[in-house]
């Protein structure tokens, strides 16, 4: 335990009856150890009543003929994991429909590109298509524009599209299973799924809308058996990903920023593993970093959010940058002597990466590379730092990290700059056949007409 030197200053707010107990450091440590235990262990999440597994309701509703469940089938080769309460969760590992993130694709595109690159290397079949919207939850949480019905309708529309998308390739329904890239989409969709399963009124309202859109299955709402985040796929594939590793990262000190909407929203669905940090932290990201041999270093503010705030990152960044620097980046540097901060969500990566430079203006100079777990994995598995990891979109000093990994980033950057000439000539390299990305409407080329 560290004690901050505050001179003679005492924190106020205790009330006039407060008297200093004058405990020794050791006694103070013992007296407050229960608080630390509570904060350090996932017990703060598990000591709760009224937690139910909504999947029980889901199976009953299907039995009653009210809904159809999009199953994680054997063809998706699921891996089983344990969640907060020790429940099982099925994570599909192949035939995946990429549900992209607007923040990742718009701002840090190396995030999804690295994920697809890893899938290519592992020969995983997937579809990345244009028929999807974002979950709209960033806007909702930021502005209040939207409501439960709109969120539910968007969720069911996008997941229905995942269910039928393979038709464009002459393949059956339910061929692909949706893999959600964004942490907020993941949390929001799980929350909305819970409300849909609980509320017949909500189901009735959105059923009318989905009916208008032609998005019902046998006249019923389609509900996914599991809502799966990409970090969960990375987690269950971590040992296979590690077989691709080309660059040793055992000297790298990594701090993990777990994303609030991944494990605090619908916390009962987050993955925990007793072998990973004693089961006291959500397992994703730490699992892959450890599998790759990096040192995962804990820090005291691991539980804090990043400061994104949804509205704040757009219109009140004084809060965002203060929180990101003071509560996350500086702590990771000073306590953990981190070489990198690894995250698994759109908003967190953006916030932590982009809000360091401005610290100089307040005399808070910080410098810590920030990457998503799949970007780090791709990097040490030999992905091109610019063509694939797209590290040029990161404001933080990813170059410092690359130097520690022994990557000649200057040579890679020069290669990429030269490659841009090829791109200008329309000869860019893609991770998949572009003809697959349009599955209906303008631009769709039926299979029979494809060369």
């Amino acid at each position, binding site marked *: 335990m560290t004690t901050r030197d505050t001179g003679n200053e005492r924190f106020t707010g205790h009330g006039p009856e407060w008297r200093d107990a004058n405990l020794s450091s050791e006694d103070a440590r013992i007296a407050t150890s229960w608080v630390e235990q509570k904060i350090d262990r996932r017990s703060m999440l598990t000591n709760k009543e009224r937690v139910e597994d909504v999947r029980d309701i889901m199976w009953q509703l299907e039995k009653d003929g009210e809904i159809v469940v999009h199953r994680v089938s054997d063809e998706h080769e699921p891996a089983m994991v344990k969640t907060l309460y020790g429940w099982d969760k099925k994570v599909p590992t192949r035939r995946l429909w990429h549900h992209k993130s*607007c*923040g990742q*694709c*718009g*701002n840090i*595109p190396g995030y999804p*590109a690295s994920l697809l690159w890893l899938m290519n290397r592992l020969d995983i079949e997937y579809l990345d298509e*244009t028929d999807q*919207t*974002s979950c*709209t939850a960033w*806007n909702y949480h*930021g*502005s*209040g*524009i*939207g*409501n*439960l*019905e*709109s969120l539910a309708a*968007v969720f069911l*529309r996008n997941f229905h*599209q995942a269910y039928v998308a393979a038709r464009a390739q002459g393949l059956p329904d339910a061929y692909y299973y949706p893999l959600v890239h964004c942490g907020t989409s993941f949390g929001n969709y799980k929350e909305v799924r819970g409300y849909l399963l609980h509320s017949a009124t909500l189901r009735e309202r959105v059923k009318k*809308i989905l009916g208008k859109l032609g998005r019902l299955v046998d006249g019923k709402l389609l509900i996914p058996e599991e809502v799966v985040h990409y970090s969960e796929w990375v987690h269950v594939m971590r040992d296979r990903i590690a077989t691709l590793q080309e660059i040793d990262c055992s000297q790298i000190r990594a701090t993990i920023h777990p994303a609030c*909407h991944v494990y*605090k929203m619908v916390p009962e669905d987050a993955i925990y593993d007793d072998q990973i940090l004693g089961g006291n932290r959500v397992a994703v990201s730490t699992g892959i970093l450890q599998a790759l041999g990096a040192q995962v270093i804990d820090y005291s503010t691991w*539980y804090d*959010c990043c400061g*994104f*705030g949804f*509205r*704040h990152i*757009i*219109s009140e*960044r004084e*809060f965002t940058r203060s*929180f990101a620097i003071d*509560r996350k980046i500086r702590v990771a540097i000073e306590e953990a002597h981190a070489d990198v901060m690894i995250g698994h969500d759109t908003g967190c990566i953006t916030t932590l990466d*982009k*809000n360091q*430079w*401005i610290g100089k203006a307040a005399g808070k100079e910080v410098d810590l590379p920030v990457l998503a777990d799949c970007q780090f994995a791709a990097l040490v598995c030999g992905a091109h730092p*610019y*063509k694939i990891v797209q590290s*040029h*979109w990161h*404001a933080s000093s990813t170059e410092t990290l690359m130097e520690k990994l022994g990557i000649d980033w200057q040579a890679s*950057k020069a290669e*990429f*700059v030269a490659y*841009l000439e090829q791109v*200008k000539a329309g000869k*860019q390299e*893609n991770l998949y056949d572009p003809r697959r990305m349009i*599955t*209906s*409407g*303008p*631009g769709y080329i039926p299979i029979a007409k494809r060369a």
Partner: protein
Amino acid sequence: MTHATSSRVQTHIGDPVSEKPAVARADLEEIFQDIQSDLRFDHELNGCLNCGICTATCPAAHYYDFSPREIVQLLWTENLEGIYDAMQEKIWACAQCYTCAARCPFGNSPGGLVMLMRETAIKHGMQSAKNVLRPFSRVMLKLISTGNQLAPDMINRDHFADWGPNISKIDAPLKVLRKAIPMPTLNTTATAWEVNLKTSIELYTIWEETGVLKQLETIDENLFDVISDIMDEKREDWKDWLADQEDEQDD
């Protein structure tokens, strides 16, 4: 109310020594009724012992005059004036991280309750909501008209000067850099990914059917008009495409 000693409470709730409230009791009741009638309300509010664990862990409470404990208490005790006051400013401080919800021993979700209050502030066209959301209009235009919240052409040094000089560390036209992303869906500049026209049309139906456009009209009529025009244009494009398909089939 402009005299020197007026407080925010006086401005929004009324002078405590005056017998005439600034907001009629019936209006306060209607606002609370709207919050309470959301089906999430009973799920997100189960009781409160004022333990304050939510506020202790709240990022917004570090920097703002905001306390999730206070929000829960106001709703739990049905303090209508206090609820109205909190809707003027405080609810917009919440960072929506749901740390409070994960920690609350009662299973409350103060962050979730804040969302119900924000939705209600919009429904009632509160000036506070209009003020707070004005800088958000660019984002809402993008999201409602395209289904993407964030687009590459929104991230530039004019709008994000505080992000420093490294928005892209390679100096090349945005269009070229986007073409160099090896996912063809991402070779775009005006949306985060290429969105199928059919997808946009379906999204517009969702907005209409769920009252989102009405919310928007209440808060920002000009933005609503701009978005309506975009929607009309895209719907025309879709009709034209469908007609072309029919013609092709006839041929």
